[in-house]
């Protein structure tokens, strides 16, 4: 069941990006709930007028390359972008990103899709691509400008962000890859049909049978295959659609709140969909120390979870400062009200 290539591989670079604008949950509640009721998070990130999955992916990718040391972008044989909000229905995001980072033309550019786990599946594929010897480097990105119908429960959390990982040989890596496992079944918890602007969701399907079952099964099976236990990990990062779910799934699996705290960004930036758990991991790598083990588990509606186990190497210490840290983007904060948010997220017609 465990997914692991014969050749040793790891993350050679990583990079984060979060837009500058923040919409407080109190603003959403003010407009639709007369300010009443509980809200799932404090605030969420909002992409600016000139931002989309391409621009956010480019910046995260540049940060990943800055941390990779002397990697020639022409040696990157794959640029893969996972998202559910690619700017074009037909025309790849990945070719634009590859061009902007100088990886063209000898590169396998492609876009990936699977709700909130499109980023981690691109990471797994990149591990296979490098691990098989087909490529020396492959770049995997999770990126989204998530859309939510006005007044829908998702409007409190659907946000924007991007995280990029350059996969390469283990001897150059800041974190080596120990193993991965995916768990997927057909679940009607969340979907968006063609030509629709906003997604729909299946009420009570989103919790126990979807998020919890898939993450718990993926993580338990992975740890069983690797012979690891929760205390073996310094940090654990789970997909974070709200604050409650990742903490609850951590406890079910036997992890402590301390283990998930460092990678839990949702209260400050919202649910960045395909970037959600990958951004949690960039926040952890920003503060990780050599020898730390980290567990990552994504969740994508529809549904599936990819679980990965990595171990941080000595190289981390000199690489962390080579690009802006996740926290630098989180604290670069400009609050907007619902009216500006409506303009920025293209909800106003003129």
């Amino acid at each position, binding site marked *: 069941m465990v997914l692991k290539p014969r050749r040793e591989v790891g993350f050679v670079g990583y990079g984060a990006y979060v837009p500058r604008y923040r919409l407080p949950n109190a603003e959403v509640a003010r407009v639709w709930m007369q300010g009443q009721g509980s809200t799932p998070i404090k605030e969420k990130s909002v992409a600016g007028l*000139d*931002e989309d999955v391409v621009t956010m992916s480019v910046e995260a990718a540049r940060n990943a390359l800055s941390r990779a040391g002397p990697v020639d972008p022409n040696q990157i044989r794959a640029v893969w972008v996972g998202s559910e909000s690619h700017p074009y229905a037909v025309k790849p995001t990945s070719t634009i990103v590859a061009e902007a980072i*100088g990886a063209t033309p000898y590169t396998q550019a492609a876009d990936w899709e699977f709700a909130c786990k499109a980023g981690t599946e691109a990471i797994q594929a990149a591990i296979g691509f490098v691990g098989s010897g087909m490529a020396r480097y492959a770049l995997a990105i999770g990126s989204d400008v998530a859309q939510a119908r006005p007044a829908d429960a998702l409007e409190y959390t659907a946000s924007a962000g991007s995280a990029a990982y350059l996969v390469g040989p283990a001897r150059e890596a800041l974190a080596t890859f120990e193993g991965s496992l995916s768990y997927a079944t057909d679940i009607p918890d969340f979907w968006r049909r063609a030509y629709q602007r906003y997604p729909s969701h299946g009420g009570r399907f989103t919790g126990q049978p979807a998020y919890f079952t898939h993450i718990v099964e993926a993580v338990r099976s992975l740890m069983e295959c690797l012979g690891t236990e929760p205390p073996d990990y310094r940090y654990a990062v789970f997909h974070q659609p709200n604050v409650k779910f990742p903490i609850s799934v951590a406890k079910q699996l036997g992890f402590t709140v301390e283990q998930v705290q460092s990678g839990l960004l949702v209260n400050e930036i919202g649910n960045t969909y395909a970037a959600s758990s990958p951004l949690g991991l960039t926040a952890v790598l920003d503060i990780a120390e050599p020898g730390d083990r980290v567990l990552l588990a994504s969740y994508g509606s529809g549904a599936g979870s990819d679980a990965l186990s990595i171990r941080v190497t000595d190289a981390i210490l000199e690489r962390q400062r080579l690009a802006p840290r996740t926290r*630098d*983007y989180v*604290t670069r904060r*400009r609050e907007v009200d619902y009216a500006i948010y409506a303009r920025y997220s293209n909800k106003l017609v003129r």
Partner: protein
Amino acid sequence: MNSVPRNWRLRQQRYRLVGEICESCGVRIFPPRDVCPECETMEQKEVAFSGRGEVYSYSTVYHPPRGFEEFAPYTVALVRLEEGPLVTAQLTDLDSEQVKIGMSVEMVTRRMQSGGEEGPIVYGYKFRPAIQPAAA
């Protein structure tokens, strides 16, 4: 700006700030051109600039030319790149009252034009205030 072939032809300089170094006199050139504006020779080598620079001068646009209405009001600046060339570009990720002559900026790749509902999206360089490290 909205010419599809022109946007395609200029993508390297627009996405990555690819300019030139004159191999004869060493001056840095942006945008790329056939003849060096300093020594008038034709030997140039392509180079991607760092994207770091500072605001030399600026103006805020409230009545934009056609094709840029979606971003107005926005600030356009002359940015002195650390390699030397002066580049005209939009500033982004800031409020117009924040702009100061001499402020440090860095290049980002952003949407220049969204092309309505059906057209091609144009991406290119803009500059924003350099990211400050968060307090530890």
